[in-house]
């Protein structure tokens, strides 16, 4: 593997209003190895995705897309590198004012390289891949939560990216919806896409990834395979897998998130 086949974070620190979200965080996403970042809500999982995409600027540390360090660069200078990546946001983030077809073909319209008929062909192909081709002319407000996620996946696929990020792809879905999304992600992986998922849903994570990173108290607590994770003796990892002692993550008495409390006092 070369650096051009990876997306990396080196010694990254990020805080909001004095609250540390990430501290000395290192992470590598290599081509062909599907990863999941795990952690409780508010642990900074989505923040990592946004930092990797250059949507947020870290306090310190570096983010690389391939060989290019994007930290501190204006967005226009790493637009080409970022086109190797697509993201499926938690709520889908479909554009309200556009139809499903326009949403899926958005990047192609913006690039202006293809004709209208070619874009329509790609859009139909991607919608058919996720099984919602009938929704072509509907608006996002007319779709169910599961359909929105499928359309968001179709939009992510439209520009044929190398990497696809998923932000909580199965949150709020019924079991069949979860199964369908997992199935879609597996099909994408079979087609050669590298996926990075952030979730707290272990079923989805174990079904779709080979490597796992657990975030705890703004730091990387664990990194390894499913077997290594299940065999880990780290109390917080055990607790995350089989919650019995919630006090490791939450204060049972007050219901407060201990991590948030600790961060707040910094």
């Amino acid at each position, binding site marked *: 593997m070369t650096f051009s086949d990876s997306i990396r974070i080196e010694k990254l620190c990020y805080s909001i209003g004095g609250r540390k979200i990430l501290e000395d965080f290192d992470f590598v996403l290599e081509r062909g190895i599907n990863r999941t970042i795990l952690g409780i809500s508010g642990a900074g999982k989505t923040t990592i995705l*946004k930092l990797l*995409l250059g*949507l947020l600027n870290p306090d310190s540390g570096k983010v690389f897309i391939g060989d290019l360090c994007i930290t501190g660069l204006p*967005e*226009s200078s790493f*637009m080409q590198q*970022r*086109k190797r*990546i*697509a*993201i499926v*946001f*938690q*709520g889908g*983030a*479909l*554009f*309200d004012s556009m139809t499903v077809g326009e949403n899926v073909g*958005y*990047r192609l319209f*913006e*690039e*202006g390289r293809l004709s209208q008929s070619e874009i329509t062909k790609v859009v139909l192909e991607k919608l058919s891949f996720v099984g919602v081709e009938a929704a072509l002319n509907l608006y996002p407000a007319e779709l169910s939560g599961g359909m929105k996620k499928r359309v968001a996946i179709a939009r992510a696929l439209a*520009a044929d990216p190398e990497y696809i990020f998923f932000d909580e792809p199965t949150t709020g879905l019924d079991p069949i919806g979860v199964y369908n999304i997992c199935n879609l992600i597996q099909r994408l992986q079979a087609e050669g896409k590298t996926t990075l998922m952030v979730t707290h849903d272990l079923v989805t994570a174990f079904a779709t990834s080979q490597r796992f990173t657990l975030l705890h108290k703004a730091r990387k607590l664990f990194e390894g395979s499913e077997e290594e994770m299940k065999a880990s003796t780290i109390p917080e990892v055990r607790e995350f897998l089989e919650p019995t002692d919630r006090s490791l993550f939450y204060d049972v008495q007050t219901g407060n998130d201990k991590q948030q409390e600790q961060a707040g006092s910094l």
Partner: protein
Amino acid sequence: MKFAVIDKLLLIFFHELQDYFTLAGRTFVRTFRRPFYYREFAIQFDKLGFSSLFICVLTGLFSGMVMALQSLIQLKPFAATSYVGGMVAVTMIKELGPVLAALMVAGRVGSAITAELGTMVVTEQVDAMRVEGTDIISRLVVPRCKAMLLALPLLTIVTDMVSVFGGYIMSAGYSINPIMYISGLPQFLVFQDLIEGVVKPAVFGVIIAITGCYVGLNTRGGAEGVGSAAKQAVVLSSVLILVCDFFLAKIFLVFRG
């Protein structure tokens, strides 16, 4: 302790001011740079401009009528009621027309721009656009600015015309000769007044759009954040319109000599 608070507040104020002017500067530069979103411009022109026509007509009509009414009462003892038309026209075209139209549009359009962009921010649509390779200033801010730059002067012209007509209706009710009313207009108005009446709303239009976009793109939180951002945008753009009106009036006075 007090100084620390003042220091912090000043820091926030100047930081916000810098960000505001940075957005304005970037918008100006991108106005002349590809890609041009013509369809988006047309949509925004219709949504922000044309749909504000009715409210501007109402504003113009009633402010013109009340201007004429008050002027008639004041001028009657001096037997100078023939000057009503000129007074209404010059006041509305130079000052009240642009400001009233801008304030009405700021309330209606400024909040709409902020709410729309704010919702796009909190639902991550703006982030999605950035990831898709879109320059959000070119895509979201520039078309709104161009639309307002063109729409508000046109709306103000309509407001002015309707207000003069409103004044005419009121004057007719007080038995003022229509010819006297109309012939009074050129006695008071000069060409520079007409220029002033168009330049001011163009500036106000840009202020409304930039302020709405700035506050919208900096929205934090959920629905509550969007609501408070919309309120903030209306207040901020209204204040900026009034402040700018004063400085523009001073500038035009300098040109008048």
